[in-house]
């Protein structure tokens, strides 16, 4: 076989279709060489080109009064007042984590941090959304243990607080765990930096770590295909060095502070290839890169390897010739390697030089903008996609007390203290509410007593989205907004990570299409724009697809963090009320899972009344009149009441007007809030609620949670609730 013929077969191994290969030949007006084929295969991968999702993502609302930077930049940014901007983004690192959980999760954190400081914002918080199989599997316990350790290792060492997150355990994630990391950064508005390259003749300077063979083809081989034969892919997982990242972070922020950079971009998936061509595309310029100048970790790397290496802790910046010496001197002070490796040109082409010769020459627009986009072919499944889980509880044969304790012990509901104590949640002196103290993390805008605060939350619920992708996704957005409302925060924007299976399969395409439709409708109804995000497709193992898992990270602002109520009951004699249009059903609930059910529907949601309830709760939280606010989520009202007791270390006596405990106690649905406060404050709330229901349930007090509904009774000591909730995960891991 001739060399050209061998190469023409190569494209399939690199994940390109025959049609895509023909298009590349057409764009180049010749056959690509080895370097060009490698570059195209990555730039045209699902991970970089969003070829199965871009058309859908274009339907999402991205504009709003606070938006400063929308999708397309390294991170989105919103105006939080006082001359400050907040940049944030969530990104997945699922397949690397499934192959090597410690490094996969660690470098997931590293990557999202770089996205945020690339726009000139100082990272102040990270959050993580994790999904694993059930903990009766040793593989799931291993993945959980190592992923949490990896997140802690990286985030703690870089000195950015991990302030929140969520973990769910469901069988469909057994082989394909999800690790989504979100970062939030803060910057003076004028320091926000874009990534467009500009100024013909300016230097391209590579900052940070040496370039090695790690992560070669990560975006195409790992991120854009279904998982199989894990061990073989281990060399495609990158290794993180948080110390290098810490120096790089401080150095980049100081370079920007001094106005020494024209633009800045992180090197993520597809390394130099995507960072340089995206910078060139945004600036409508070309770039020349001399691979011989790139500092290497090992000798003998081929030009194509240098171009696509995914070695971590690297950034690419554009510097005017007159400022180069100053840039290099500052980098030396921070002990950060800085090497001019190329120049900005007017060719609109990405040209790669090695040994004085051109080894690759491609039009930038073909690389970045001309990858074919595919219309999905959605088709609602005729048969259920997911098998019903094994039943763990027989509700007819155990009393209500036991049902509550079983729910609290269910790993998806149980306390995640085991995980979050492994994270530094306080560095930065902004954490006014730590994980577990309120429904959303609250971060002071100024770390030294200034006014105002941010609230941030990340959420997703694959089980409910699997029941009904449209409504389930609407509920994810509502859940985030509810968490923010509980601390008095008004949402300014959201970021999302769409974790789905193989979109080339019609039923996955249907899940994705319905989910994005729900996301758009909910965003429009609540007036919350999408400012950025990430798509992770092909999340399938040998036993089928994951639950469709859109994860949403939402950021809001509030005026006075000192007034924020906690989630726990606190004062004997406080009235307890249920606020909001809460209409619980068993479909998609944790109790349905424990009893071995799997529904294929959810009740429709009235977004207008949900929005009114959010506003009512937000104002109530801001007023400082209530003692506690907590939204009803997984496990329903019963679990929410138990969580209020556990958090506050005090009991409550509650009477429901319904004839029986289930499904009112265990059913789930959006729009329920448990509040406590002085009786007159709760009356006052009811008086101003309009069409939003406010139902008095009882009073705080005693050392047990007692619930009565008609003849049915439930009574559990708070200490027993706490033990069930907090010991469940440590017990399952020991």
């Amino acid at each position, binding site marked *: 076989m001739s060399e050209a013929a061998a190469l023409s077969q190569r494209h399939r191994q690199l994940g390109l279709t025959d049609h895509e290969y023909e298009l590349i030949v057409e764009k180049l007006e010749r056959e690509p060489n080895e370097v060009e084929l490698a570059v195209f295969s990555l730039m045209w991968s699902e991970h970089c080109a969003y070829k199965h999702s871009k058309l859908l993502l274009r339907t999402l609302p991205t504009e709003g009064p606070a938006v400063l930077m929308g999708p397309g930049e390294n991170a989105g940014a919103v105006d939080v007042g006082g001359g400050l901007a907040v940049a944030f983004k969530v990104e997945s690192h699922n397949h690397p984590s499934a192959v090597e959980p410690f490094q996969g999760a660690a470098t997931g954190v590293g990557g999202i941090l770089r996205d945020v400081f690339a726009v000139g914002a100082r990272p102040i918080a990270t959050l993580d959304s994790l999904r694993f199989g059930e903990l009766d599997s040793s593989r799931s316990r291993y993945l959980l243990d190592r992923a949490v350790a990896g997140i802690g290792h990286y985030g*703690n*060492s870089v000195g950015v607080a991990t302030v929140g997150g969520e973990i769910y355990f469901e069988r469909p994630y057994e082989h394909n765990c999800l690790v989504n990391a979100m970062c939030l950064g803060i910057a003076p508005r004028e320091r926000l930096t874009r990534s467009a390259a500009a100024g013909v003749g300016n230097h391209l300077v590579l900052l940070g770590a040496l370039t090695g063979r790690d992560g070669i083809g990560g975006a195409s081989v790992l991120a854009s295909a279904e998982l199989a034969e894990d061990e073989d892919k281990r060399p495609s997982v990158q290794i993180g060095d948080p*110390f290098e990242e810490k120096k790089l972070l401080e150095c980049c922020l100081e370079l920007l502070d001094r106005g020494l950079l024209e633009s800045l971009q992180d090197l993520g998936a597809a390394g130099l290839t995507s960072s340089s061509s995206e910078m060139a595309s945004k600036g409508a310029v070309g770039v020349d890169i001399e691979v011989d100048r790139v500092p290497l970790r090992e000798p003998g790397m081929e030009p194509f390897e240098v171009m696509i290496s995914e070695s971590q802790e690297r950034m690419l910046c554009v510097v005017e010739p007159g400022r180069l010496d100053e840039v290099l001197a500052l980098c030396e002070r921070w002990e950060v390697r800085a090497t001019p490796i190329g120049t900005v040109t007017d060719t609109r082409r990405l040209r790669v030089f090695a040994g004085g010769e051109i080894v690759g020459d491609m039009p930038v627009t073909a690389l970045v903008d001309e990858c074919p986009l595919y219309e999905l072919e959605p088709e609602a499944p005729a048969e259920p996609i997911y098998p019903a889980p094994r039943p763990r509880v027989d509700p007819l044969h155990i009393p209500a007390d036991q049902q509550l304790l079983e729910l609290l012990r269910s790993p998806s509901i149980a306390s995640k203290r085991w995980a979050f104590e492994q994270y*530094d949640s*306080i560095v930065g002196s902004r954490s006014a509410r730590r994980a577990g103290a309120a429904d959303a993390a609250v971060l002071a805008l100024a770390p030294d007593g200034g006014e105002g605060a941010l609230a941030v939350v990340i959420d997703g619920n694959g089980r409910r989205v699997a029941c009904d992708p449209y409504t389930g996704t609407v509920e994810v957005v509502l859940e985030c907004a509810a968490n923010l409302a509980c601390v008095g925060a008004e949402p300014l924007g959201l970021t999302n990570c769409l974790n789905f299976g193989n979109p080339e399969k019609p039923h996955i395409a249907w899940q994705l299409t319905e989910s994005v439709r729900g996301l758009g409708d909910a965003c429009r109804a609540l007036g919350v724009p999408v400012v950025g995000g990430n798509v992770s497709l092909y999340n399938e193992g040998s036993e089928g697809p994951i639950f469709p898992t859109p994860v949403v990270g939402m950021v809001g602002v509030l005026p006075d963090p000192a007034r924020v109520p906690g989630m726990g009951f606190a004062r004997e004699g406080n009235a307890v009320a249920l606020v909001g249009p809460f209409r619980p059903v068993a479909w998609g609930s944790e109790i349905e899972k424990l009893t071995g059910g799997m529904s294929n529907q959810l009740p429709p949601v009235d977004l207008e009344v949900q929005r009114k309830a959010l506003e009512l709760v937000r104002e109530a939280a801001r007023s400082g009149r209530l003692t506690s606010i907590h939204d009803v989520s997984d496990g329903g009202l019963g679990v929410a009441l138990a969580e209020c007791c556990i958090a506050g270390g005090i009991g409550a006596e509650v009477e429901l007007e319904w004839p029986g405990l289930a499904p009112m106690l265990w059913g789930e649905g959006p729009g329920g809030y448990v509040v406590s406060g002085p009786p007159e404050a709760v009356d006052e709330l009811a008086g101003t609620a309009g069409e939003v229901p406010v139902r008095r349930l009882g009073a705080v007090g005693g050392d047990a949670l007692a619930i009565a509904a008609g003849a049915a009774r439930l009574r559990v000591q708070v200490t027993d609730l706490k033990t069930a909730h907090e010991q469940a995960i440590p017990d399952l891991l020991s």
Partner: protein
Amino acid sequence: MKFGVVRFPGSCDEVDALLACRRFGDAELLWHGDRDLRGADAVVIPGGFSYGDYLRAGAIARFSPVMEAVAAFAADGGPVLGICNGFQVLCEAGVLPGALLPNTSLRFVCRQVDVVVENADTSFTRACARGDLLSIPGKHTTGRYYAPADDLDRMEANGQVVLRYAPGENPNGAEHDIAGVVNEAGNVMGLMPHPEHAVDPLTGSTDGGKLFESLAAREPVLA
């Protein structure tokens, strides 16, 4: 009163320490590559992972230029407070007795802990009373204080054990529940919990401010 807060590459809590110090006096950052302490009356070595801590916590930082100056400052009786990684650095440098070993759990632990003031007669605790309970967060992987039994007995007898985890609060398996110690001369203190993260009611507690307050109340060292 002027505090100098050392900044190594890999320091994480230096700005938090700087802000905490500024609640009680003037403060500025000291660069690891400089030997000049810029007229500081007290030096704080903050938490973090100096130089990455890949060899052993604090093992590289002790060789930095700034630490030469800090060691000389301490030898002259200047007050030095090492927090978490700073404690590890001071033990590595031999300025404080003992060593910090990996937590018995072998995991990073971030948790609010109660510590008991065992000696209120130091430059670092004079704003407290003996027996006071301080709520201060701890966060570390390598915080298990260790010294040979004879040394521990001598330190206990000398009043060098300044802070001890309250019963049931020891997060790392430290010998004698030790959270913080001073050197024999009493002018150098190291502790694992982070007092700079306990200076504002908004972030959970103000008890850590007592240490900075104590230092600030100290008579300035006359040149």
